[in-house]
């Protein structure tokens, strides 16, 4: 094997080593938590790598697609709240339908009429009428839903289906959202696309936070059904406890580790499947065409490639992968907390993963996902330890020492920024460069 061929496995072994050190030094529970979120992060990074690495599309709305995935989990897996449906479900949905109908009507009208003042006025009139009428129907319905047991439910609930089903559906829903966004924003120059996606992500989060009838808003949806058994269920099984004790393990921590391993197994299957497809696609004629478009749009267009359509396609595909990852993330948490979606953590961190791993390289994205997630979690304890060592000469109880130790948590952002800048400067092609 050549040196370049050895590079990828070596780097993966190094990252695995870092996680193993965490396992020995802290606990295997922490290490497995990192592995699980690392797997999800790797999938998000894979999705972003499709958009940025294959096609050069500058999407900083990753958080929005992750949130769409999270919402899908609630809609699929939560049991339906029949009372709420009876109270206002029909009215709320009818109101939304009127709004959608007005949008479709406006689009159709624009296609039929020639440009001119009539077309502009007609479009505006249909949209305004649809908005006012739709809201008039919708708001009483939504209010009725939110009044049904607001402390416990106060939302429509979902369809009560198995939670795993939400993962592919989340991909489909995120793809649909991405299609709409792409129709509006693709074709703009790169940094305009960035600002547009940033805005859309903020709007999606605003919807999740404030549409209580759909997501309970900042009251959070908790107790989402899980694809794996609960720890307490395992502990209630005497056979399990006996076997663990027979192996000389503490049943409580063994149960928690076993549950995490079960999640990890599910996630590995998804990652392996997506990775296989991504590698096949990247190394196919289609993948070469994508990279040709990225490297020189004008030349590709001259060769007869439909650049806008290909961009649309890859944007939707990448968003679908992000949606799947978002659903997995919410499944892992077991709750949807709209207030916790922060762009630094859910959009820009993914960018660090892709850039550090190597833009355009699928293995790089996966490696970046694990490495950067490990760092994100570990920088705080490492920073605390480092500041502890550095401040030892300071007297106990000094204000500066307390401030420095209290600020260890902010080291995280500074470290991530430094890593991004250092990689961009000294290894712009990333740890595993695109071939």
């Amino acid at each position, binding site marked *: 094997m050549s040196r370049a061929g050895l590079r990828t496995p070596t780097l993966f072994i190094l990252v695995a080593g870092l996680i193993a050190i965490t396992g020995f030094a802290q606990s295997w529970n922490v290490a497995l938590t990192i592995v699980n979120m690392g797997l999800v992060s790797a999938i998000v990074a894979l999705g972003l790598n499709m958009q940025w690495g294959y096609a*050069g599309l*500058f999407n*900083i709305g990753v958080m929005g697609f992750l949130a769409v995935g999270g919402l899908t989990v609630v809609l699929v897996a939560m049991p339906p709240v029949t009372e709420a449906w009876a109270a206002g479900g029909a009215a709320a949905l009818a109101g939304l339908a009127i709004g959608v109908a007005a949008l479709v009507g406006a689009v159709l009208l624009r296609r039929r009429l020639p440009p001119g003042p009539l077309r502009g006025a007609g479009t505006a009139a249909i949209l305004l009428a649809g908005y006012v009428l739709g809201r008039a129907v919708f*708001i009483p319905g939504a209010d009725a839903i939110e009044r049904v047991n607001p402390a416990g439910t106060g939302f429509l609930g979902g369809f009560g289906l198995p939670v795993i089903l939400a993962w592919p559906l989340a991909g489909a829903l995120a793809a649909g959202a991405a299609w709409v966004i792409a129709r*509006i*924003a693709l074709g*703009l*120059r*790169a*940094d*305009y696309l*960035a*600002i*547009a996606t*940033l*805005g*859309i992500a*903020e*709007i999606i989060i*605003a919807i999740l*936070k*404030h549409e209580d009838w759909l997501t309970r808003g900042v009251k959070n949806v908790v107790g989402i059904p899980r694809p794996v058994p609960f720890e307490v269920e395992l502990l209630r099984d005497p056979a399990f406890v006996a076997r663990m004790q027979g192996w000389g393990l503490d049943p409580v921590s063994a149960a928690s580790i076993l549950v995490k391993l079960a999640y990890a197994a599910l996630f590995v299957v998804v990652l392996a499947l997506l990775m296989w497809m991504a590698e096949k696609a990247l190394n196919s004629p289609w993948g070469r065409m994508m990279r040709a478009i990225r490297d020189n749009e004008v030349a590709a267009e001259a060769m007869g490639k439909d650049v806008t359509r290909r961009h649309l396609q890859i944007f939707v595909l990448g968003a679908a992968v992000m949606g799947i990852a978002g659903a997995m993330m919410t499944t892992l948490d077991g709750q949807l907390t709209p207030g916790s979606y*922060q*762009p*630094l953590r859910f959009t*820009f961190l993914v*960018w*660090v993963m892709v*850039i550090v791993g190597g833009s355009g390289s699928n293995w790089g994205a996966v490696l970046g996902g694990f490495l950067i997630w490990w760092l994100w979690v570990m920088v705080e304890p490492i920073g605390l330890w480092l500041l502890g060592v550095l401040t030892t000469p300071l007297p106990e109880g000094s204000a500066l020492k307390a401030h420095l130790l*209290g*600020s260890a948590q*902010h*080291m*995280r*952002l*500074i*470290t*991530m*920024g*430094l890593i*991004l*800048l250092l990689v*961009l*400067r000294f290894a*712009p092609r990333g740890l595993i460069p695109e071939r």
Partner: protein
Amino acid sequence: MEGLLNAAVVMANFVIVPATAYGAQLALGALGVTLIFGILRFSNFAHGDTMAFGAAITILGVWALQGAGVSLFPVPTAILALPFGILATALLLLATDRGVYRFYRRQKANPIILVIVSIGVMFIMNGLVRFVIGTEEIRFDDGARFLVDVRGFREATGLAEGLAIRTAQVTTFLTAIVFVAALFWFLNRTRTGKSMRAFSDNEDLALLSGIDPERVVRVTWVIAAALAATAGVLYGLDKSFWPTTYFQLLLPIFAAAVVGGLGSPLGAIAGGFLVAFSEISVTYAFRRALGHLLPPDWMPAGLVQLLSTDYKFAVSFVILVIVLLFKPTGLFRGTSS
């Protein structure tokens, strides 16, 4: 007649005064973004956190001045501390340019790489701000709270509705006018300002006529620092300082800069006010103002609010998208390529 006056007072109190102050803050922010775009040719995503940094240093200055017993009553102490904030921000931006951006400029890197670099800078600045001042909400609007308060206004005019104008709002507006006037004087009347505009219009021609590009870039960063720190302080005075809100200002600020036409200072100001007035009037409930105009039995049942305040981002976003789709160079013909 009195109904009309009362309605006008309600509108002034809840829409015009707040939107003017907010518009001035957005305009200052958008001016910074547009200048950096004009000279350095990339969209600076770290601008929001630059504003937060300027505000954070200024707050430290305010605390120091308050500790020393210095005050400018009734004007907030922050105005006195603002020069410190500007100085620190300018030093930070010059250091960032030297350490980070200059390398890519020399390489003539793709602008999108510079945008990603600015994201890295954004991370560091965000961490730095939290490191310096923590993540708690801070109010630092000392000085007189109101210039015109509701009760005084009612007693003076005899109207049913009151008007409140906070000192922070007036300070914002006056400071913004001073800064904008100084900026335009600088750009149009001084040699350095003219060389900046020449550089922005046509880089090659400017280089040929002997303009030192590095000097232009340095001056641009200093001006951007002054604008960002001022905008950050004024926003913090008007609302409150919260390190995380400044990132969210990025969207309205970019919307303002793009609407006005990236690279056009006049456009940035117009864009700032356009975004601020649309955002506040679309999310304002007009019921109270209509109450003074319509006969009681014509009163609408709802709040007459087009969009809930929760979706104020959507307003800047929609403005942005409409402008990009129909007039991509902006209202004042900026650059679009």
